């Protein structure tokens, strides 16, 4: 497997970069939904994510990468702790897991370890993709084409952060907190509203049309293809800086204050646009806070709100089949009306 293209070396696509970065600052924002054509750098962005994420501490040999400092451990770690074993921790890279469209339920949720059951007669749980993505990212390319029964599996887990397995005579629950990244082309199919709602932020990407940025993209690609190691090293500093900025923002996150005024603004914006549910407001609140923290500010401002509102609301507007106005335009109009 080759080296991934460095995250910071990606030309343009600022919206997508910002949305991704904010979810690393505060994973509870929810996932990121990326809509756009083929060949716009969606896959490159996701593949570059793993190397960009700051490393994290996890319990050694834990299948779910439990956080040793967290009060909630998985059942296996708890059992070890109760048996008096010391839980060693190690630094690992945050997982970024691919969920292929045609994956089976077993591969996603996990199932009875057939091999062990058949050869050794042991009943044990073979973890699925949801377990592997715990504390990291789960990426679904062409999420709008995902089969319904797989969507059902995700919807519940994405909200509760816990995977409940009741199958093959197994009864297991394990943590499965991940940031969902979905990408797709809206022309190929609509997304189920319930799943849409699970995504915190959404972005629309396009290939840059101006020649200069396209040249820059190709040039960087070329340099990367020719000398992946050297190119990655060139961007190492920028990567490190971004990581440190993210770590600093995480620490600052809880100290950032979001005033009632901002919350009122967010509520009136949501009700003006008629977006369903409270999740929109909740996401705005979290995203505004993460943005302020990333921006090295202690107080969230209206400007932060203005910047992030389209990300958080674009996919939550009720679609009127007889109105062609794009969601982004509607939000911008509402922003002007509500927050003059």
């Amino acid at each position: 497997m080759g080296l991934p293209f460095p995250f910071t070396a990606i030309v343009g696509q600022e919206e997508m970069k910002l949305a991704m970065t904010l979810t690393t600052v505060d994973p509870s924002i929810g996932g990121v939904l990326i809509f756009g054509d083929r060949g716009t750098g969606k896959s490159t962005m996701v593949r570059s994510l793993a190397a960009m994420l700051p490393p994290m501490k996890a319990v050694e040999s834990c299948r779910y990468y439990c956080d040793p400092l967290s009060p909630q451990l998985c059942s296996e770690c708890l059992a070890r702790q109760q048996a008096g074993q010391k839980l060693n921790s190690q630094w690992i890279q945050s997982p970024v897991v691919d969920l292929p469209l045609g994956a089976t339920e077993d591969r996603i949720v996990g199932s009875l370890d057939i091999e062990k059951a058949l050869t050794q007669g042991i009943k044990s749980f073979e973890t699925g993709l949801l377990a592997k993505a715990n504390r990291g990212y789960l990426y679904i390319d062409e999420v709008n084409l995902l089969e319904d029964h797989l969507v059902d599996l995700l919807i519940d887990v994405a909200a509760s952060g816990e995977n409940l397995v009741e199958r093959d005579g197994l009864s297991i629950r394990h943590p499965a907190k991940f940031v969902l990244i979905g990408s797709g082309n809206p022309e190929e199919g609509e997304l189920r509203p319930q799943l849409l709602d699970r995504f915190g932020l959404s972005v629309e990407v396009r290939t840059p049309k101006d020649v200069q940025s396209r040249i820059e993209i190709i040039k960087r690609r070329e340099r990367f293809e020719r000398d992946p190691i050297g190119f990655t090293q060139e961007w190492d500093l920028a990567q490190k800086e971004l990581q440190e900025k993210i770590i600093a923002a995480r620490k600052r996150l809880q100290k950032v204050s979001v005033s009632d005024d901002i919350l009122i603004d967010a509520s009136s914006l949501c009700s003006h646009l008629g977006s369903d549910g409270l999740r929109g407001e909740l996401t705005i609140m979290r995203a505004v806070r993460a943005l302020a923290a990333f921006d090295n500010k202690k107080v969230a401002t209206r400007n932060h709100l203005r910047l992030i509102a389209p990300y958080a609301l674009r996919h939550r507007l009720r679609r009127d089949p007889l109105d062609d106005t794009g969601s982004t335009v509607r939000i911008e109009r509402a922003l002007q009306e509500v927050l003059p």
Partner: protein
Amino acid sequence: MLATQNQQSKWLDACLIAQLITINPRVLGGIWFKSSAGPVRDQWFTFLQNSIAGQIPYRKIPPQTDELALMGGIDIFQTLQFQKKVYSQGILEQINEGILVLTMAERLERHTAALITQAFDLNQFGLVAIDESIHSEEEQLLPRIQDRLAFMIQLDDLSYKDCQIENIQIDVLKIRNLSSKIEIPELALEAIITAANGLGIHSIRAISFAIQASKSLAALRGSDELSSEDIRTATRLVFSHRLRTLPKEKSEEENISKEEPQTDSSPESQEDISQNHDSSDQQSQNTISKEQLEDMIIEASKAYLPQNILEFINNGKSSSGSKNQEQGKLGEQKKGAQRGLRLPSRQVKFDRSKKIDLLKTIQAAIPWQTIRNSQQNAINSPVQLKIQAQDIYLKQFMQRSTTVTLFVVDASGSSAKERLGEAKGAVELLLAQCYIRRDQVAMMTFRANKVDLTLAPTRSLVRAKRMLSAMPGGGGTPFAKAIQSSVLFAKDLRKKGHTPLIIFLTDGRANVSLAGIGGREQAYLDCLQVAKNVASENLQILFVDTSFKVQESNQSIARQMNAKYILLPQGKSSAVVQATKTLLT
């Protein structure tokens, strides 16, 4: 003479592509090989294999290849036989830096396609996808795979005598190394990108392919510098099938080239300076200006324009357009479903994507235990229960199929506009309401003596809106033909595992016969005749009569084809949707 020359150059290009893909399978992605079986195709593959000559991995797989074979994993059979873990290596891992040939790629399942594209992004290999689809309406190679392949080869109109092959030996690794050292001058890069923009090619991948291909071409010549000829050839091979818009005509081009220097003047002059710095060793480039190179690329890319190019482009039916393309085989083949109604488990060939029914498997194994325990290899085995491959039972499911609602709308005569408007409204309303179910909507229109599939089955509201935005109306009423075509289409849908539902939106009054001749009487008789044949198909049909009062002729047509008949003078969108729902439940 001219035709043969053209064909010969086509064949030479195909051979050149074979060499390029052998040299750099990883960076060039592969070939969309659109050609049916025949001696010409075999000839090409002989050439490919001669070029490869065992220097890189080469594998051929059918589209039904399962996940275990592709990705590798625990080999259940071997594991059971040797009573210890046996892993098999997946084809996609073995093929690293090699060439994978996929036969009947148009039948590729979405699941397999997902695995292949994923492997493309990680391991990387070259894919030769043989697409045997004949009409553009049929299933084609999935667009997302198309986009990842640099070249397209179409050999169907070549005759065998044009296709002579020479046995040329190439040293793959040497040329590959050489090509990776070549640098592309900024001028050429800029020209390629500008030309691509002008041709409507926006995918960054395509540009990257063109650059890589020109480098490989230069290396193939044994040179470590790009020549303008390399670029010309590379863009011809990579761009011509991706063309989206026709490049501007000469006269327009002149106007534009006059304007261009004004807009681009500042960056360009800067680049000229930088060019002088680092391109002292690229004399061949300096003699050509960027505009010349651009024109050259555009000319080269037009080399293989299909004859019906105008129609091709106006319809947006370019290689990567999605007008008539469904996204693979969604909802087909429900037998292999993973959920839904449980059917009794069966002893079938093991396949990793299916679930093993443990209980049944153990039951099947128990009667054999005495025999198996007394066998040689069982004596040292610590396992109590001896299970062998033939015992395995797999769970089987059946899934509800997708309903496709097909609107067949009368676009003839004066009332066409309103009726079309209401039909569009109904399509959009139905889509907006039903994306929770897995249903799809399609639309056919008939007028003059034509029946068109205006909207291929889709779940996407965005797509539907775009397709429905411009629809012509007026002309005669070829109702018989409309019934015939729509039923054919519905049968096709049923074959694919969908449940079709036809809704006719018309005021009847057929006046074009099946043979395409005007005249009410014959047209009506044809309708009745066709309708009679339809009855035996057992389809669900709704006949929405948009006349002002009940038309007996329409009623009898509806009766003949076992359709539900309702009268909706205005054919209001919401009322149509309501009526459809009663039919669905």
